């Protein structure tokens, strides 16, 4: 075996030791065999090879997968190993399948047979076998090649190249491995039939042989492919990435090539392929270098793309979910978290991979964090889905109380490991609202309990949710919450005594029909049998959306009134009876005769003995009538003495010998003569005193009832449309600015109290409510002028009821609730006014102005927004404005905005906004929270200011500065290097070879070195000069001038010593200057002082600083040569040197220019005072800033 490369050992050969290796084959054969072997090796599918006697010679992984036998088990066995026993013919016969195959072989054609195969585990599988004859070099059929495909799976491919089971009697077996080994046939068949695109190629990538599948994949004909190279099969977009890979392989640097890439078909269609190539390293035929395989994986790629898309969608959903989410792995480390979970981890960097228990304990403290961790671990172990109750705990790091709802689920990751996904929602606000609601509800109930009237509430279905003690007293029983429905009572009766089912009671109607039911009268029977008359006032309770959430009912006990009414009815009946029997007196007044005639009843009414002729003088009647009523009655009488007049009058009389008065109702008609003149009046008198008294008694009872209403704080108005009066409770009367409420107020008076401008609307609505076809609802807000001149807003709501059961038949009536809306209206008015003002202001501003609700929902934009963006309000509302922000700026802006929304801190950011024409411009965005009384944010108010030009200018400037600086440094460095090289080599040269040079040569060398050194200094100084004007906006660190001076003196130590100079100084202050700059200043000035010394005396330099108003004045005084007045200004100019080159005073002429530029940058000044020959004093100032002053 050693003659063969080891990777192909079992192709076309039995296992070692089972059979002799093929001998004496030609190189070509061997190449072919390697090629075939390569197919086997690089194919993921199954190929097996063989022996002519029906003995399996080769068996690859694909066959092993399909049939279950390992190669060492199958090789050497008959192909009948795979044939179910029942299909194996007895003795030497051949099966039907074998005969079919035999036919293919003899005819030298390919064909297909369906067969049942037996796997190692005795499963029978249906396979579709493509059979091709195998021929040797001489064209003799030597066997068959089989490609088996499991029929029911279609996709799974197994290629079995097996020896045929040719009946022995028909064929002389060619048991010759050498012949068989001419595997060209095998190669061809496998090559041709493989559903994989295959090709062989030359070292330069040129395609040599291609199969049909490759033609199908690429859309090129075989001949066309033959002119192409491997690289050409790659999609142009993928070529760059693929080429390196492929070239490595072709150059032999890589032993295998594998890539997934796109392939451009001839027809332009793009296919994804998995391309692989293996070398045919043993090849003697150098043209055939390798074997390429192409699997069409377009479907998979599409599926992957869809998956990615769906996952992207999913992760977008997760990111945008209104719940926070994070994922932990089974080691309890954070794997992933979404945007809403960011605040949870904001203190932790990095988050991914961090131990979650550590986070929990840090956030919630050891105990609580540990408890939560246990819950997590339980879910991790058991897989049980955990949903939390509200979880409220002070978070250790924030000191705020937050309420969370959370749930944990266990996931199984693709790798089979568990992970935990944690969802949470911050319900702090809902929880607080809930608490507030409960609190409000409690207060509401307390209030109800304190009411003297019976009150109860129900839920939407009418089940009792609450009742007060008065209700218990009224009902004579304690109802059961949640069981009793509609009513607190035990039994209900209608006024006529028939039973009333609870489901038909007024409360039930109110809830079912969603309206207020007023004016009903119902009898309640207590368990003890006593009966109570009451009037219920049920009304549905609605939430803010108008949906009914429950009901409230107030029961007013009207038993007393009913008793009075009963009594009244009785007395009225008596009166009527009396009237009918005898109580109607009849009178006649003859105007012409001036006589008045009464019947007997009249005398009885007036308590006078009847006269004989039953006539009386007029004085008799006049004397009887009470003085205060008489004038009015006389007047009325005068008015009615005209044709066809009728009248009804009431007046009071006093009967002789009786206390008090009687009330008389008088009715009369007028008779005329033939000439049309009034001749006499005919009338009746009825004593209605009893009736009136009963009515008054009723009035008293009603007043008392009303007082009851007043006590419960209701402002009510009960309108009697027939009498045109309104009965007001005290509170209602006060709202209308009316006084006494004991008597019913005429409607006219009430209307008179209302603002004239509202009266028309009032009467219109009133009529609408009175329309029997309508719902009877009345609702209006109107103004009531107050004595002070300002207006009160009153809201009246109620319902007209028709056909009430009232005794006196007052129908229709309305019970109206009256509310003082002045405060609300004022608030509304001022709100409207301020909104108008705000909008006017906002619209007049050149910026984009906006305002959001507390949660960041933007609901207000000024006009400029619509102008700038070209979008209407609807497309900006809420968070839609994000669409106009540049995508690159949005994440940063959004993050800061979220931080501000959470913290209430002022917001500031910069972002590009898209203009209507698509152009993005830079804006400075600022927003401030508006806080309510309870220090909670109620709104945000923001502006976005266009800073585009400014920003660009700044950017340009900054860039220019940066470029300049880096240019200067690079240039100086690059210039320095060659100079240094020249100078140093020069010096080295002089040092090493100086002894061999003459003095002139040495002089030249020195000149060269000095020149170069001066050039180098010049560059350094020039750089420092450009730097001196370039101060970053960074804060100016403070430096003690004294310590800077000490360092300068250390640097100058050599010069000081050389010149035998003395440098002294006063105490120096701390100043706000960068140390390096102060260093530069002092070094320049002091070294100048030492340099421009007089020959005659040793230099003395003194440095001092004096505090002036807003600055320190530094001075550096020397005893040097001094400067002539005409040069004193020039010394600060760049390159201004007062001394010729070569003199001992020479320099670069930049030092003082640097000093000036540096000091000017600190808003200081520098100047010199000097006398030629007497030394100079250089002064500079450094402004004092507030920090300095504080010290």
């Amino acid at each position, binding site marked *: 075996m050693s003659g063969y490369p080891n990777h192909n050992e079992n192709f076309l050969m039995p296992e070692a030791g089972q059979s002799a290796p093929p001998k004496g084959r030609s190189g070509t054969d061997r190449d072919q065999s390697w090629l075939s072997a390569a197919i086997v090796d690089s194919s993921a599918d199954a190929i097996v090879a063989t022996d002519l006697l029906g003995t399996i010679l080769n068996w690859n992984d694909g066959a092993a997968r399909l049939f279950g036998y390992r190669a060492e088990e199958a090789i050497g066995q008959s192909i009948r190993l795979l044939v179910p026993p029942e299909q194996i013919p007895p003795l030497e016969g051949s099966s039907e399948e074998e005969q079919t195959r035999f036919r293919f072989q003899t005819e030298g054609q390919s064909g297909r047979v369906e067969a049942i195969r037996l796997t190692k585990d005795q499963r029978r599988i249906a396979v579709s076998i493509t059979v091709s004859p195998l021929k040797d070099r001489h064209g003799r059929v030597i066997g068959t090649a089989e490609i088996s495909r499991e029929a029911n799976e279609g996709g799974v491919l197994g290629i079995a190249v097996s020896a045929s089971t040719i009946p022995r009697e028909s064929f002389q077996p060619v048991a010759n491995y050498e012949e068989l080994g001419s595997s060209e046939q095998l190669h061809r068949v496998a090559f041709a039939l493989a559903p994989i695109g295959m090709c062989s190629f030359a070292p330069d990538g040129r395609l040599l042989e291609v199969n049909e599948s490759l033609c199908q994949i690429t859309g090129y004909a075989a001949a066309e492919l033959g002119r192409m190279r491997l690289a050409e099969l790659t999609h142009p977009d993928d070529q760059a990435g693929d080429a390196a890979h492929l070239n490595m392989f072709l150059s032999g640097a890589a032993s295998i090539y594998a890539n997934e890439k796109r392939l451009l078909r001839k027809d332009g269609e793009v296919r994804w392929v998995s391309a692989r190539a293996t070398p045919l390293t043993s090849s003697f035929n150098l043209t055939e270098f390798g074997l390429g395989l192409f699997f069409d994986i377009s479907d998979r790629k599409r599926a992957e793309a869809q998956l990615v898309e769906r996952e992207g969608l999913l992760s977008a959903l997760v990111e945008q979910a209104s719940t926070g989410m994070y994922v932990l792995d089974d080691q309890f480390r954070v794997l992933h978290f979404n945007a809403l979970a960011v605040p949870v981890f904001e203190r932790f960097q990095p988050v991914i991979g961090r131990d979650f228990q550590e986070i929990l304990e840090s956030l919630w403290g050891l105990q609580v964090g540990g408890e939560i961790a246990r819950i997590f671990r339980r879910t991790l172990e058991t897989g049980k889905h955990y949903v939390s109750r509200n979880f409220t705990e002070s978070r250790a790091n924030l000191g705020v109380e937050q309420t969370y709802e959370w749930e944990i689920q266990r996931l199984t990751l693709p790798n089979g490991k568990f992970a935990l996904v944690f969802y949470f929602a911050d319900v702090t606000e809902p929880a607080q609202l809930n608490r507030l609601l409960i609190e409000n509800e409690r207060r509401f109930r307390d209030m109800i309990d304190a009411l003297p009237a019976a009150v109860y509430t129900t839920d939407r279905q009418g089940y009792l949710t609450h009742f007060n003690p008065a209700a218990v007293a009224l009902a004579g029983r304690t109802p059961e919450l949640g069981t009793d429905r509609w009513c607190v009572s035990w039994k209900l009766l209608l006024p006529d005594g028939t039973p009333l089912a609870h489901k038909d009671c007024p409360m039930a109607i109110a809830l079912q029909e969603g309206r207020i039911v007023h004016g009903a009268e119902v009898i309640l029977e207590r368990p003890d049998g006593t009966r109570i008359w009451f009037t219920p006032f049920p009304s549905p309770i609605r939430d803010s959306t108008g949906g009914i959430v429950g009901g409230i009912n107030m029961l007013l006990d009207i038993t007393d009134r009913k008793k009075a009414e009963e009594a009244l009815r009785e007395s009225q009946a008596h009166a009527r009876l009396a009237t009918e029997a005898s109580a109607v007196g009849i009178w006649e007044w003859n105007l012409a005769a001036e006589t008045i005639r009464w019947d007997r009843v009249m005398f009885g009414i007036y308590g006078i003995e009847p006269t004989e002729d039953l006539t009386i003088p007029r004085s008799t009647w006049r004397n009887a009538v009470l003085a205060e009523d008489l004038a009015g009655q006389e007047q009325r009488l005068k008015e009615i003495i005209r044709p066809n007049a009728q009248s009804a009058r009431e007046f009071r009389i006093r009967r002789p010998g009786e206390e008090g008065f009687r009330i008389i109702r008088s009715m009369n008609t007028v008779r005329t003569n033939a000439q049309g003149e009034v001749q006499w009046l005919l009338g009746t008198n009825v004593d209605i005193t009893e009736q009136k008294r009963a009515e008054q008694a009723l009035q008293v009872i009603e007043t008392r009832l009303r007082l009851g209403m007043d006590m419960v704080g209701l402002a009510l108005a009960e309108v009697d449309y027939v009498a045109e009066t309104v009965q007001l409770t005290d509170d209602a009367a006060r709202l209308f600015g009316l006084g006494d409420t004991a008597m019913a107020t005429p409607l006219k008076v009430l209307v008179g109290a209302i603002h004239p401008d509202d009266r028309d609307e009032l009467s219109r609505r009133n009529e609408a409510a009175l329309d029997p076809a309508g719902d009877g609802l009345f609702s209006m807000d109107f103004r009531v002028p107050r004595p002070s001149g300002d207006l009160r807003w009153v809201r009246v709501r109620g319902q007209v009821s028709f056909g009430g059961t009232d005794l006196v038949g007052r129908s229709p009536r309305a019970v109206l609730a009256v509310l003082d809306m002045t405060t609300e209206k004022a608030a509304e008015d001022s709100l409207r006014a301020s909104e108008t003002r705000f909008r006017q202001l906002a619209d007049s501003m050149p910026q984009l102005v906006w305002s959001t609700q507390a949660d960041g929902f933007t609901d207000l934009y000024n006009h400029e927004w619509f102008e700038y963006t070209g979008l209407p309000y609807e497309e900006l509302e809420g968070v839609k404005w994000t669409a106009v922000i540049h995508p690159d700026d949005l994440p940063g802006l959004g993050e800061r905005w979220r931080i501000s929304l959470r913290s209430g801190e002022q917001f500031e950011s910069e972002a590009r906004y898209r203009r209507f024409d698509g152009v993005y411009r830079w804006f400075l965005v600022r927003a401030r929270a508006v806080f309510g009384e309870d220090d909670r944010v109620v709104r945000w108010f923001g502006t976005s200011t266009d800073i585009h030009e400014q920003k660009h200018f700044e950017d340009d400037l900054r860039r220019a500065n940066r470029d300049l600086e880096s240019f200067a440094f690079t240039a100086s460095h690059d210039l*320095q290097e060659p100079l*240094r*090289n020249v*100078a140093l080599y020069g*010096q*080295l040269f002089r*040092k090493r070879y100086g002894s061999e040079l003459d003095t002139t040569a040495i002089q030249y060398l020195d000149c060269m070195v000095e020149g170069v*050194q001066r050039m180098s200094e010049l560059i350094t100084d020039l*750089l420092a000069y450009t*730097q001196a004007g370039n101060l970053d906006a960074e804060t100016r660190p403070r430096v003690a001038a004294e310590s800077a001076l000490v360092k300068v003196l250390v640097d100058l130590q050599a010069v000081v010593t050389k010149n035998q100079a003395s440098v002294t100084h006063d105490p120096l202050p701390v100043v706000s200057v960068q140390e390096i700059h102060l260093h530069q200043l002092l070094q320049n000035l002091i070294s100048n002082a030492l340099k421009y010394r007089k020959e005659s005396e040793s230099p003395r330099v003194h440095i001092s600083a004096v505090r002036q108003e807003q600055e320190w004045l530094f001075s550096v005084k020397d005893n040097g040569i001094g400067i002539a007045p005409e040069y004193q200004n020039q010394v600060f100019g760049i390159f201004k040197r007062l001394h010729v080159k070569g003199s001992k005073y020479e320099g670069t002429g930049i030092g003082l220019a640097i000093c000036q530029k540096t000091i000017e940058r600190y808003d200081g000044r520098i100047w010199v005072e000097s006398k030629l020959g007497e030394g100079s004093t250089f002064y500079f100032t450094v402004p004092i800033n507030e920090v300095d002053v504080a010290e």
Partner: protein
Amino acid sequence: MRWMLPNSSANIVLVEDNPLDIFVVRNLIEELGINCRLHVYSDGEEILTYLAALDASDDHCPDLVLMDINIPKCSGTEVLQWIRKSVRCGELPVILLTSSDRPRDREQAERLGVLYYFRKPTDLDEYMKLGPILRQVLANRCCNESGPS
């Protein structure tokens, strides 16, 4: 490139690409008779490779690094940062040899704990002043290492 001086005990690493500077440094070490081995790396990649290998091995850290800021392939600052992050050789004394006088370079050097910022002079005599500095650093190094702790 790698030069070694015989009979040495201290190890000095020089990171420099200018042959002249390498020549001068080698010369001054020779002239002053400093007992050391000089290892020269002429670009950033070389020195980083060396440092990475060193960090992974048990070898001793060098006693001193002499380094230019402006070197090919990566900046001296990067190398310096790498050294400071190194677990084993983080405390290594470093002397910067540079022709840059840029304040930012000086600040950075200070921040990264450079022992000495030696401005490459144009004057040979000035250059020779590096010698005593080296000698002193090595002396301190030796005493620190051998002294009781």
